[in-house]
């Protein structure tokens, strides 16, 4: 079920719910970080999450693969309730790719080993098969010629593309991106966004926390605006950026647009 061309036209062609959050609440001590969140991401959908600092975007993203526990509510991935711990949770995480703001490549392993580790250890792939697939993915994100370097020897943009390849190597059903370009020097942002746009056009289901409006306009089906732990507004990208309904979204956009 691939989509192409305008995001709007593709909306009707999206598949069944893949990620479903119902009544999700999360506190950090006294702080209520996620407030009764209901959110559904359908197969093939690209969802952009946007909002001011501290609004709970990262927490939302991390709750989806249970790097953050939740207080109540339910999270289903592909119809399956997110297990609380153990093997079941590890298996489910293998199906959910995650890309971090700070890359988090394994510092003691080469680029190639970074991409091969999950398939070999979590999926039980043979080394040769894992290597072939890893090289294919590194080629796809444009860093195949760096495969034997250590992560610290790469630029930020290259590291983040390796991190995307590492996540893709697990053949995930959905990819989570938490501000994947905000730790990058400006000249490297586009090389990462290009890979993400490509991925979106191939039909990957994606949840992307980002303030990159260009990406949202080009690739997203829907924008969710969060403020203070609440989903305040949901809209198609064009509508959200040109004509936001809520005052809070208008306020937020006026701030990031004047920069």
């Amino acid at each position, binding site marked *: 079920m691939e989509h192409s061309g305008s995001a709007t036209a593709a909306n009707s062609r999206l598949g069944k719910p893949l990620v479903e959050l119902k009544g999700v609440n999360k506190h950090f001590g006294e702080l209520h970080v996620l407030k009764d969140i209901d959110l559904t991401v359908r197969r093939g959908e690209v969802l952009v999450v946007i909002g001011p600092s501290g609004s709970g975007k990262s927490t939302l993203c991390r709750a989806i693969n249970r790097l953050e526990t939740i207080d109540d509510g339910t999270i289903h991935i592909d119809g399956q309730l997110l297990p609380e711990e*153990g*093997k079941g949770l*590890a298996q489910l995480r293998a*199906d959910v790719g995650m890309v971090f703001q*700070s890359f*988090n490549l394994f*510092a*003691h392993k080469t680029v190639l080993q970074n991409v091969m580790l999950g398939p070999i250890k979590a999926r039980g792939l043979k080394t040769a098969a894992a290597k072939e697939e890893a090289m294919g993915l590194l080629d796809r994100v444009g860093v195949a010629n760096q495969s034997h370097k250590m992560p610290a020897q790469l630029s930020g943009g290259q590291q983040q593309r390796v991190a995307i390849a590492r*996540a893709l190597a697990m053949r995930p059903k959905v990819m989570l991106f938490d501000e994947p370009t905000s730790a990058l020097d400006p000249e490297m942002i586009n090389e990462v966004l290009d890979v993400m746009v490509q991925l979106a056009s191939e039909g990957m289901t994606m949840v992307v926390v980002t303030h990159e409006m260009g990406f949202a306009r080009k690739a997203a089906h829907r924008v969710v605006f969060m403020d203070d732990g609440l989903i305040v507004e949901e809209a198609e990208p064009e509508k959200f950026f040109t004509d936001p309904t809520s005052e809070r979204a208008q306020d937020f956009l006026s701030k990031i647009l004047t920069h």
Partner: protein
Amino acid sequence: MDSVIEALPKFWDGFTTTLFLAVVSGVLSLVFGTILATFRVSPLKSLRIVGATLVEIGRNTPLTLVFIFFVFILPSMGYILPLGRVPAIIALTVYTSAFVCEAVRSGINSVNVGQAEAARAIGLGSNQTLSLVVLPQALRTVVPPLINVLIALTKNTSVAAGFAVVELTATGRGLARDYPPDVIWMLLGVAFFYLVITIPSGTLAGYIERKVVFSR
């Protein structure tokens, strides 16, 4: 001075016994200490409590008391151990494991949490996360403190002299008794043989440190 030459065979026996105690207890302590450290960072609370309790006991009990426990108290309770090296190795291991554990644990804590999160995010279980991603990186920061622990262990083997093990210190004491005019030389001989173990350890530490801390 000649008497030192004369006593060389005895020094050698003492030296090999000390080396044996240090190496065997050292290896066992590295193994058990690392296992204890994984207990201390386990997601299971019961394991964390067991780990913390054992560490506090090992770390806060004087080594002589640990020896007394394994050489006298345990046998008096009916658990007979062969005399000599075995209880000494057990006592040294129990004591040193606690320090190894704390060194490894601080190494684990020095690894950025993002590394473990990335490992879990690709579907590795908590044991795999620890053994494949966190521990290999922890070892880098852990080498210098671990070598200090092992050097302390080498010196601590001298406590065994009080418990029927004729290692370097006991040998030195005997020789000092046999050659009263040369007490100083005998003690210097003992010190020399300890240095033969500890100085190369320090050098090795420096080498390993340079070798493993190549990137980050």
